[in-house]
């Protein structure tokens, strides 16, 4: 119960920062599109075991569009895809995990602007495991006793192969397609900023 409350609290904080931040209509539309594309990532690779392009798309979105937008893309993609696949107790935690993946990618961009392909590949790989551990957290906190490090490690060991496949999938996807994907998104994101500046609509279109 407490763990679910923590997840909802964290989601709430990030959500509020998005609500009270300045966001233009074009930014909102791009976030919605990226959320839908990320949600599609769960479907496209359904045939390949636990390879989820969602994490990769969310990380690239966060890296290009910043922490706040990256979080929103991650959280929205989990919620939206589950409207079609079925919401479950995993939804909050998927929202939190993918949201944090996007937000951390934004922070990574600020700290290491020129991180490079190798660094990003490692980051994607690590998020495969982080995602699994966050998802394990709710399971562990709600259904396992005693709540000790040993029992948590046991739960993580049980999901190790799934997490490893997820991590390897993320790394391979970034290694093969990360640069092009980032370029495409960067180009559109820059275009969005430029068109607003020229037309002088920046103030009127933000809310």
């Amino acid at each position, binding site marked *: *119960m407490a763990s*679910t409350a923590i997840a909802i609290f964290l989601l709430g904080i990030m*959500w*509020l920062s*998005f*609500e009270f931040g300045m*966001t*233009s*209509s*074009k930014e*909102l*539309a*791009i*976030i*919605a*599109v990226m*959320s*839908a*594309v990320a*949600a*599609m990532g769960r*479907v*496209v*690779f359904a045939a*390949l075991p636990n390879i989820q392009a969602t994490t990769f798309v969310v990380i690239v979105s966060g890296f290009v569009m910043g922490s706040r937008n990256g979080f*929103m893309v991650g959280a*929205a993609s989990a*919620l*939206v*895809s589950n*409207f*079609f*696949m*079925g*919401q*479950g107790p995993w*939804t909050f935690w998927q929202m939190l995990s993918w949201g944090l993946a996007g937000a951390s990618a934004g922070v990574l961009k600020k700290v290491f602007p020129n991180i490079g392909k190798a660094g990003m590949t490692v980051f994607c790989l690590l998020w495969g495991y982080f995602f699994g551990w966050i998802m394990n957290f709710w*399971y562990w906190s*709600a*259904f*396992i*006793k*005693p709540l*000790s490090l*040993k029992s948590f490690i046991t*739960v993580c060991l*049980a999901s190790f192969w799934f997490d490893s496949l997820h991590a390897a999938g993320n790394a391979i*996807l970034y290694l*093969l*397609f990360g640069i*092009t*994907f980032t370029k*495409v*998104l960067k180009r*559109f994101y820059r275009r969005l900023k430029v068109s607003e500046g020229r037309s002088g*609509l920046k103030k*009127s*279109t*933000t*809310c």
Partner: protein
Amino acid sequence: MEELFYREKDLFLQKLHPTAAMVFICVLMVLSLIFTNPLYLAGLFLCTGFLIRELQGLKSWEFFLKAGLLMTIPVMIINPLVSKAGATVLLRGPRLPAFGEIDISMEAIFYGAVMSLRLLDVMSVFCLYNIMLHPDKTLNMLERFAFKSTLVLSLATRMFPAMLRRLENIREIQAVRGVDFEKGTFKEVLDKYMNLIYILLLSSLEDSMEIAEAMQARAFGSGRRTCYIRIPFKPRDFICTAAGIAALFAGIFGAVKGYGTMVFYPYLGHLISREDILLLLFLHMMLLIPVFMSWGWRRCRYFR
């Protein structure tokens, strides 16, 4: 996958006000997380089952229960492995490097079983949510508190099925051009699938510009938004909400007084007392009110 998990069936429980439905679902969820007594959890499971049956969602429930049963396997295995608090040791296992000596106790096995039941309860409540509340109604509720986020969610929810159709079109076009998605090495297959996503991404990003311009043309962000509430809160919604809240307070009262919770370690505590029976009766009466109302709604025109 192109259709929502929710199906409109014109049923009483689907016609409840979204707030009333959400309150009731949240009460079921909170109660299943508060109680640790298997009798209470089994009762909640049955109540949720009756509600799902009233929503003609037994097939969806089967899907959720199958997934839930798979998830209970680690709960059943890990609890006896890591817990050393149980006094009735049934089996002394080998000494493992990280775990120490493995003692399988009856209390830990029982705890694992009860937690599995709780997991099935939680899964059933989510199944109920999926078949009871249309996503649009959920988003409508959220809109009042977080309109920008809700707008993103609404747009993405509309785009998702459209993108799936578009993806299928792109796949067919690629197949006509001779691309075989089944053939090739792992990298080649991945490459082909990723090409699909590229094309989809580019066309969708172009579309997003049009969406944004359409939003601007409709004065998005030009001032304070107005909100028009169209769904009335009817007496039936009031009754269901009141029943849910009464059950919640009874559950919290019981939990504070020590009913509904069970001692597992070092020895199993009592399963039921006289007060437990009274509380169980009251709780289930409250939780079954929407089931009775739904039954009446189907059979008596005065309920409509």
